[in-house]
């Protein structure tokens, strides 16, 4: 066992014994709440840092931490225990974005009757979920998490979804449009537009009606697409789930008007002011787990209309083509037949971020649905697409 491993083991034992979270212990040892998590993920530190941490850990084990059974919430002595990144002058753009998102989530939890978080399993959803865990800590988020499963998602997404829900103790709802399944709707047989409409848009409406959710969090960002740049954080939907872009409520300060009539609902976008780079940078800073499909690996792909499509199961008609094993990864995740891969060797987060910084094609380009018609996103949203 390496020195780092043994330190991690001891730190975890101290955490269990005292009831303090690992990040609190981490901050006490390294002045950095994420240090232990980084080390655990294979990160390194200097010998000097390690020595300091070890000395502090010994102190803690001998002192306050050994008093098992004391109330964990008692204030920790603050000597030398600064939180440098959280002083006002140093509140970074990520800190501010995080605080804004948490504020929005708490507002919905306090005012909506029956909120839900839509979880697409993608990287934005991962960030949104992480923020929800923070917003209500030490409580778990006071709402269920719902995935609209089109039955054409990558298998790895489904696996990741179920593992995440189990690990975080979430109340996960999976909704599938059963009528669509019975009619055999799929992207190969019905085309991307019809498939997305029935298995995603209609399915979402079904689910919202079925559970009578009056507020639904979504991970959309304003930087994704022009019509989203003007959508409010709290976006209202009629009883028919329609969006009226000409009749949006003004949003001033951080005061949100959440009132709706019976049957109407709100889509809430806590990540409105985040950009793609912010999302990646935050995933990196906070060590947020994401679906492995974002990282490059050898995957079987075929080329369709200029896009690299991964053959994720045998429902894909190959028409004589032979899938090639290529190093690819995905910049966005959706239904596998509609999601283009990019050739890449990026297998770590910094490499992905580097690739993103050098990229010359914007994010949604990989999605087949947005190209179907001009101004398509605005039209889709009016019809109830999230």
């Amino acid at each position: 066992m390496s020195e780092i491993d043994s330190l991690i083991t001891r730190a975890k034992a101290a955490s269990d014994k005292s009831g303090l979270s690992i990040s609190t212990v981490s901050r006490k040892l390294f002045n950095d709440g994420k240090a232990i998590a980084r080390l655990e993920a294979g990160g390194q530190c200097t010998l000097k840092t390690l020595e300091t941490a070890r000395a502090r850990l010994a102190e803690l084990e001998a002192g306050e931490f050994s008093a098992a059974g004391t109330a964990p919430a008692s204030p920790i002595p603050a000597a030398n225990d600064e939180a440098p990144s959280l002083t006002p002058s140093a509140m970074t753009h990520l800190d501010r974005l995080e605080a804004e998102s948490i504020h929005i989530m708490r507002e919905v939890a306090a005012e909506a009757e029956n909120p839900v978080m839509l979880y697409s399993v993608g990287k934005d959803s991962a960030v949104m979920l992480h923020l929800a865990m923070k917003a209500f800590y030490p409580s778990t988020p006071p709402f269920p998490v719902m995935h609209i499963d089109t039955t054409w998602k990558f298998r790895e997404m489904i696996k990741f979804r179920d593992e995440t829900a189990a690990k975080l103790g979430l109340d996960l709802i999976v909704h599938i449009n059963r009528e669509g399944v019975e009619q055999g709707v799929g992207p190969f047989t019905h085309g991307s537009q019809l498939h997305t409409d029935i298995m995603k848009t209609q399915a979402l409406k079904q689910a919202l009606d079925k559970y009578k959710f009056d507020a639904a969090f979504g991970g959309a960002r304003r930087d994704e697409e022009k019509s989203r740049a003007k959508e409010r954080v709290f976006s209202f939907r009629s009883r028919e789930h329609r969006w009226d872009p000409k009749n949006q409520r003004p949003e001033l300060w951080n005061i949100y008007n959440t009132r709706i009539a019976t049957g109407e609902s709100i889509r809430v976008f806590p990540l409105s002011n985040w950009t793609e780079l912010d999302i990646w940078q935050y995933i990196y800073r906070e060590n947020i787990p994401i679906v492995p499909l974002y990282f490059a690996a050898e995957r079987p792909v075929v080329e369709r209309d200029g896009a690299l499509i991964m053959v994720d199961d045998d429902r894909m008609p190959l028409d004589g083509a032979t899938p090639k094993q290529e190093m690819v990864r995905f910049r966005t995740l959706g239904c596998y037949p509609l999601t283009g891969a990019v050739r890449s060797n990026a297998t770590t987060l910094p490499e992905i971020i580097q690739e993103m910084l050098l990229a010359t094609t914007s994010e949604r380009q990989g999605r087949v649905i947005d190209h179907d018609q001009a101004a398509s996103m605005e039209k889709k949203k009016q019809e109830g697409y999230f």
Partner: protein
Amino acid sequence: MSVATLKPSDDVIEYLAAHEKKSMLRFITCGSVDDGKSTLIGRLLYDSKLLYDDQISALESDTKKHGTQGEKIDFALLVDGLAAEREQGITIDVAYRFFSTEKRKFIVADTPGHEQYTRNMATGASTADVAVILVDARRGVLTQTRRHSYIVSLLGIRHIVVAINKMDLVDYSESTFDKIEADYRVFAKDLGFETITCIPMSALEGVNITKQSSETPWYQGSALLPYLETIKVRGALAEKPFRLPVQWVNRPNLDFRGFSGTVASGTIRPGDEIVVLPSAKRSIVKSIVTHDGELTEAHPDMAVTLTLEDEIDISRGDVICAGKAPAEQTDQFAAHLLWMNEEALYPGRQYLLKTANRMIPATVTELKHKINVNTLEHMSGKTLELNEVGFCNFNLAQPIAFDCYKDNRRTGAFILIDRRTNATIGAGMIDFSLRRAKNVHWQDLDVNKNARSSAKHQKPCVLWFTGLSGSGKSTVANLVEKRLHDMGRHTYTLDGDNVRHGLNKDLGFTDADRVENIRRVGEAARLMADAGLIVLVSFISPFQSERRMARELLEDGEFIEVYISTPLEVCEQRDVKGLYARARRGEIKNFTGIDSDYEAPENAEIDLNTAEVSAEVAANRIVEYLESKGYLEG
């Protein structure tokens, strides 16, 4: 290190570490269609290398379709979002844009400049730290420049950049620039800005955007982007007393009770004394809990959870304040109000007022004056129309904790919500508490309502007859009063026509006057109910919100809404007073049912249609209702 120079071999981890420490600045751009505002933002995005190849190629194809710049890329097309706007060539909403440099991430609120979009500009300004006001160098300081400056100052922005744009069209003339700067400073001296920075610019040519340009060698100041990267805007809120509006009570189990919210101002540490408003209970902060561990300090804009040493009752809507400097509390205050709704503001009508964490019914009791947003002159008026700003007195159903907006943008702001449509209809900035609220208390009299009504062997109530003119309200009310009188009950009828000859003879028939008419009648009815009487009110009272206001003046169960639902055709056919005929001929304006709306009650206690039942039967039903509900006992 910028994105463009980053080579795959460079250490991206170093880049990430540098960018993790960036701060954030929000700013708003104000200008009219022709000032080149969208061009400026497009230029900032372009020059900070935030456009991807596919966006640029889409831009080039859009330029061919709708562009106004010939062969040059039309940056404005990049930021005009909604399809309708692209076609009309104007920006009609608030769009938020993002870009970042090595030093800062920027959120830009791009708002339209026309007077009819004042509300959109106010929305963008409410969260901005800096305003960039565009001036066309050929035209100088115009009415719209004044309007934009006033609105951003009203919303509390203290740092202004006057971007004197299109300098290329005046040959980069120093004297032109100097004159505009001098004009602006004279005009803006009373608007309370801390800094005013004038920059000569050409957004189209990229002059003085990212760096000082050789086109303006006489200009020694900073270019726009370096200015935005270095301006210090925060810190003021940290100096103010601590405030935490409680958003959510965090109660995972019986052993933990935390109060979650975003710090509005000040700093808090474990061990600090706090006071909770409105209860005025005191305690000591035990810990500042976050998912990343407990903090030793919390500052403005941080979303935290506090635990306290004592178990005191705190709920959403309360404000946790510094023990030594609590916020003021009041149920009456004066505030500047920006009206954002198509339907005008009516003093006396009840709205919902929402602060950072609390919602309560409120009315404007007096519109002191309106402010002409173009000239800043004060004007008198009875109502506020869309996009107008007024200085008003407010009366709230319950006291709130607040600070003056100029001291604290977070605890001095509120929005108004329409109770019927749920629309956000006003944005308010509190100026000061009206001291009256602290001094006037209700006299607690020994002979009270119970004593007076039990002497009359009845429970007081108000039978509120509403319905169209000619529906039979007065006829039925008259019969009911006769029956009750015969039964030995004590009654009084307030009739619409009669009250207008006396108490309300100063009022006309505009919507504003109708609201005031009903308010007075509601108050009169309340006094009579307090005297122990059964009061019959016979008024068209066409608006739901005023009937609700009257209902809320009374105690639960005292207000009985009687909807005489006789249809318009029948009323018009009857036309007892010949009024419908005159309204149809256009001789009477604002006649309910003809050119003024009647909003039918949704949950009236009693609903009677005199086209289906006779007035006698209707009256009997009402008396039966009173008997069955126990109003005639006591």
